[in-house]
């Protein structure tokens, strides 16, 4: 065990007891601070740099083929702790060639931004990688209704993200080869 060494405190000299040299020193520090570069971010004109993995406003994304990824499984709605998400499930219209094999799509998808707590559970739970919390952080509106993001708004905010799997393309291909599962 380390031994504690008690140091004798040196008695203050006369100039130290007047505090004046210390005050002068402090004044020097603050004065030199005046000419240092400012750290202020002029907010509306300058935006902060958003780091990767930032949890901003939840959005819906499309895959690079422009297809809606959400299949309206409602897992996000179920997991959402403040119950901010409300999905009205719907079917995929017949005859859409590139969405063949997908059974469902959301008819309406609403996220109430007054309830959302930006926890990111929806992104975590989504089996289709359709919902992402992206870099948008500032949402404002004049009424409660304005603060509910509907499906169109969510896709507008989300845009397109790269896809690593093309899950449904693979399914379709497998089905074409007579091996649907």
């Amino acid at each position: 065990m380390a031994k504690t060494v008690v140091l004798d405190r040196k008695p203050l000299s006369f100039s130290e007891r007047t505090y004046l040299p210390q005050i002068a020193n402090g004044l020097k520090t603050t004065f030199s601070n005046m000419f240092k570069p400012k750290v202020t971010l002029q907010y509306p004109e300058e935006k902060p740099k958003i780091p990767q993995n930032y949890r901003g406003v939840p959005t819906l994304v499309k895959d690079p083929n422009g297809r809606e990824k959400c299949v309206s499984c409602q897992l996000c709605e179920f997991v959402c702790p403040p119950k901010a998400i409300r999905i009205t499930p719907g079917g995929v219209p017949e005859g859409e060639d590139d969405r063949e094999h997908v059974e469902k799509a959301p008819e309406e998808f609403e996220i109430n931004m007054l309830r959302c707590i930006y926890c990111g559970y929806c992104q975590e739970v989504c089996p289709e990688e359709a919902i992402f919390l992206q870099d948008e952080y500032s949402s404002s509106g004049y009424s409660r209704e304005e603060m509910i993001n509907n499906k169109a708004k969510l896709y507008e905010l989300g845009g397109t993200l790269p896809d690593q799997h093309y899950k449904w393309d693979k399914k379709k291909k497998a089905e074409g080869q007579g091996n649907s599962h």
Partner: protein
Amino acid sequence: MFDYELIQLILIKVIFAFLMVGAIMTMAGYSVLAERKVSAWMQGRVGPNRTVLPFVGHIPVVGSLLKGLGIFQPLADGLKFLFKEEIVPGHVNKFYYYLAPIVALVPALTTMTVLPFGEFVNAEGVTIPLILADLDIGILFVLAVSSLGVYGIVLAGWSSNSKYPFLGGIRSSAQMISYELAMGLSLLPVFLWVSEPGSTVSSLSLVEIVRSQQGSTWLLIIQPISALIFLIALFAETNRLPFDMPESETDLVGGFHTEYGSFKFGIFFVAEYAHIVIGSAIFTLLFLGGWNFLPWLDNPWGADWMGALIGTGWFIIKTISLIFFFIWVRWTLPRFRYDQVMDLGWTKLLPLALANLIFYIFVVTWLDQSNLNLP
């Protein structure tokens, strides 16, 4: 009939008085801006830089520069105080509650009457000081009236009928009374030094004290200890950090003005800064040579009205530098504890001021005797 000369004289004085009040109030307003700007710069921020008048902001270079410096901020601040809702808490003593801000502001504005800011020689060769009232007890008047300002704070603290303002008021009165002594004692050696040896006329006039520093050294160099004590006492009297006991927002919420809002708070605010402006001006007059150029140098400008203008400008520059010093100290030092303030005032500054006085009594006596070959 009417005595036209008298009316003329009164009119001129009234105009001068309004000009003076305007100038001091403008300086007080801009000290607030300076406080915000300087504190921001010292803390790595930019400070107020958004306010701008319509059209002015569109002038190419000047407009954005003025906007960046926040030149129009005091205007916005003043209007904000003016248009805010007047809230009077139910538990206050109405009469004194309304009286307090006025009592705080009036002494600050009264002391400016004996504040000289320049002098010029007219066509007949008579030297005329630029001053509203050339009292030969100038500094005495300043000390007497400016210490009345404490009544405003005490009244505010008491009439608010609430614990924090009350504590603020008590602290403030104790502090002001303590530092008043050191302040007065630190000035005595100055006037001992200035009054001419052997002459029957010795004056407390602020004009005389500036004249005595003309072409010779500043009193700051002759009497550094007096200047230091006076400066510290000035900080205490104007309730600036490190002595802002009446306000001390960390332990007393807002101090004496906790229960005040809108325009009444604005008056307290302006009074505080007017005190600082006038305190800086007094220190400049007493220790920094007033409108005289530099120590040991004759004024490079003439004594006509042009020279008077330059001298006044020089005096204002010195005053502004001192105001900057006030702000600079505020954003450097932490606040003293209340007992430390009292300790510093009574056991350090007062004995030091007394010793300083006695020392200079001996020096001045010795000088006078050797100069006049008195027995």
